[in-house]
């Protein structure tokens, strides 16, 4: 969990940082950061399979006194056109925010914006 005097860390992570990781490495990296109390904003989010695996890994890591899980908000894959699909252009998952559930709360999300708050009193001071 985050140290009292260290404030809350937000890390904005470019897609270049994660693109050479395998899915397993990526998920391990993300979950470790989040368990350390950091909030991550990924330029390119996770594929649906990775999202499901992240939830699965999170469930295994939940320890009721130190880690209650994650808050995550992201967008569906970019819609790609018929021709792009024919030529094998992969769907790119869009921006995603992930943080520890004791710190980060999703307030609202629509097609263009994700609104979050830091839960007051939990490390914000």
């Amino acid at each position, binding site marked *: 969990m985050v140290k009292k005097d260290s404030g809350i860390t937000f890390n904005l992570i470019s897609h270049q940082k994660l693109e050479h990781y395998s899915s397993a490495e990526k998920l391990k990296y993300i979950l470790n950061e989040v368990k350390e109390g950091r909030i991550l904003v990924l330029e390119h989010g996770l594929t649906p399979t990775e*999202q*499901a695996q992240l939830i699965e890994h999170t469930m295994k890591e*939940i320890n009721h006194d130190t880690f209650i899980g994650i808050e995550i908000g992201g967008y569906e894959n970019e819609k790609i056109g018929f021709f792009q699909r024919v030529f094998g252009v992969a769907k790119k998952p869009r921006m995603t925010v992930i943080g520890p559930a004791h710190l980060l709360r999703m307030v609202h999300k629509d097609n263009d914006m994700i609104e979050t708050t830091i839960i007051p009193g939990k490390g914000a001071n």
Partner: protein
Amino acid sequence: MGLLERFRESRFSKMIFKIFGKNHAKIGIYGPPNVGKTTLANRILRDWTGDIMGSVSEVPHETRRAKWKNNIRIDNGGSSLTMDLVDTPGIATKIDFKEFMNMYGMTKDDSRVRAKEATEGVIEAIRWLDDIDGVVLVMDATQDPFTQVNVTIIGNLEARNLPILIAANKIDAENASPATLKSAFPQHPVIPISALTGYNTENLYSMMIKEFGKKRHKQRR
């Protein structure tokens, strides 16, 4: 093992059933905790078999093991669908045992056990996704629909080209807003229902027959 049984067990016959037996679908009821999945499963069974699926509660994570019933036949006068129906534990990204204590007055021990079992239930629900031919995604029409759980379930099904029906449940509640759900997920059919009162479930059954009876090329993820 007789010859006939051996044939039935063989990969070859399984392949034949996969190709020709597509009107027998394995359908999962999915969604976040507490949206009314088991209430809907019970409603479907009561309407078509007289059975029940499982217990219902206002406390989230009531279902912590997947439950299923096989060979449920539903019809709408014209066409029919025979399915195996799976009621899954609610999928969540966080589980805090203190919520069970503070909001529902459970003891600390009970809360911890429930939370632990709930984490295992989530994993089981996710694993079942690999095994399913279509999903009724239940959402609570009184709540904000854009949860990551819904996005993740839809994304996984879309990646495998499998059909999804969205049941906008609790439509009987005063603050229900099915229109919000419809605009949030324009690419899938949204059917407003009340699993509690049975309102509009005939419509859901017709859509299930239509969407889940279709032949599709299933892709493994």
